[in-house]
């Protein structure tokens, strides 16, 4: 089965989801990422969803799960690049992404991760 590439950038891991994932691929990403976080002792996880046209409850749960598992492994997760149509739909669905921090793009996401690692978890941008 194909898998989604995970890149290491300093102390952070970067994942860019470029395909419309079927459920097994999403679960594989969740497992791979958790394993990589532990293996590399990464402090930050950046998930770029700018290519995703649809985020449904399954993918939403995947993102929340990743954030929760990363947290247990002492890493902070930021999801970036959510499209407006996706955001509007998630709001309509009534789906928040608990424990998932978000930023507009990769650059801001990296800044946010640095912020969070410096202890600045002041509750901004937390959904």
């Amino acid at each position, binding site marked *: 089965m194909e898998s989604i590439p995970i890149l290491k950038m300093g102390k952070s891991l970067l994942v860019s989801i470029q395909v419309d994932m079927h459920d097994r691929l999403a679960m594989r990403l969740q497992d791979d990422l958790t394993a990589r976080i532990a293996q590399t002792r990464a402090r930050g996880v950046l998930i770029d969803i700018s290519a995703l046209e649809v985020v449904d409850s399954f993918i939403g749960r995947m993102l929340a799960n990743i954030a929760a598992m990363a947290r247990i492994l002492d890493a902070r997760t930021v999801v*970036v690049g*959510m*499209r*407006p*149509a996706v*955001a*509007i739909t*998630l*709001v*309509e669905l009534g789906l*928040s*992404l608990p424990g998932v*921090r*978000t*930023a*507009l*793009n990769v650059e*801001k*996401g990296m800044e946010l991760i640095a912020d969070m690692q410096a202890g600045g978890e002041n509750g*901004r*941008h937390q*959904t």
Partner: protein
Amino acid sequence: MIARQQQEMLELSTPVVQLWDGIVALPLIGTLDSARTQIVMESLLQKIVETGAGIAVIDITGVPMVDTLVAQHLLKTVAAARLMGAECIISGIRPQIAQTIVHLGVDLNDVITKATLADAFSIALQRLGLTVAHRT
């Protein structure tokens, strides 16, 4: 075809302006109906992505009246912006609108509101860690 032209006209008539690097504003004028509000809010979110603005000020000084649907659209837009990673400030809420909002039971607790666009801009600058100083 006509619907698309209408949509384009609506977007043109409610331009999103960039107040500063990282701060955009949407001054709304006139009566808002549900359809118009939706289109305008979508274009605000799109502008947030395009400019990378972390803060958007929605100014409703020029809006005489707001009903439940419109209030809900505003709240949904704030929620959507937050999901994307940006914050919204709503400014220019007149006393009558404030009364309507309370009367309708709409919960604005989670949203930053300021009386004037100027106040909102000031708060936005603060949040970005910026300050305005006199030239010496």
